[in-house]
């Protein structure tokens, strides 16, 4: 069992501009997810590292990304932690009766939902000479 994060990003207006410019939207999205999956994983790692008083790296090694994958019209990546290998990431994210939670997955998803993906899409449009 793994702890995974999934969210839908409101990038419709950006994709519409790309489509109107004759770009292959599916390919652009796939490329963007490919380019950003390392950044997302590193942000999780950063939150995890910053909130750890002692750092052995064991929890960090359970972090993963998977994709880009395709399911019908949906193109996505999955990020998270392999908690079946080591449940410490679960304890860090959600806490226990005796351990305060120090979330790393949900802040990463929130950052990309509110800001990160907009920056990334802005760069894509700019590279094609388009404006949002």
């Amino acid at each position, binding site marked *: 069992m793994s702890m995974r994060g999934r969210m839908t990003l409101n990038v419709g207006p950006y994709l519409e501009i790309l489509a109107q410019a004759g770009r292959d939207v599916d390919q652009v999205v796939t490329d963007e997810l490919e380019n950003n999956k390392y950044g997302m994983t590193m942000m999780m790692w950063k939150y995890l590292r910053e909130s750890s008083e002692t750092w052995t790296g064991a929890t960090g090694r359970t972090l993963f990304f998977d994709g880009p994958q395709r399911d019908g019209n949906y193109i996505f990546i999955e990020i998270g932690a392999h908690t079946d290998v080591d*449940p410490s990431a*679960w*304890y860090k994210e*959600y*806490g*226990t*009766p*005796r*351990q*305060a*939670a120090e*979330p790393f997955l*949900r*802040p990463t998803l*929130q*950052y990309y*939902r*509110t*800001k990160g993906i907009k920056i990334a899409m802005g760069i894509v449009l700019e590279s094609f000479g388009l404006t949002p």
Partner: protein
Amino acid sequence: MTTIFERVKTALGNLSPAIPYALGQRLTATGAELPDTFIVYLLVSGDPEQHADDAETQRTYQVQVSIYARGGLVTLPDVDAAMLAQGFTQGPERQLLYDKETRHFGLAKDYFYLE
């Protein structure tokens, strides 16, 4: 201005019957047991949503409220009603791993507040 922590504290303080709650972690005196039922809350994230004229105009807060209970998860305090009354919206919830040492079951519920 009311902080997000005040909003959560007000909500949890309105629970009836009263349930002990704490920010981050419930601490006990050395050797003392944790209560049979208690609540812990924390801020998961607070991200700007919208800007206008170089100023932030909207921000979303994500808050986790964890309910721990030795008696299981069938009958729990009505945290949803208390949080909704303070203007929060409900997010996902998940069952936490059973803690064999403290003998608590747990349920973590996420709430969002747009300010």
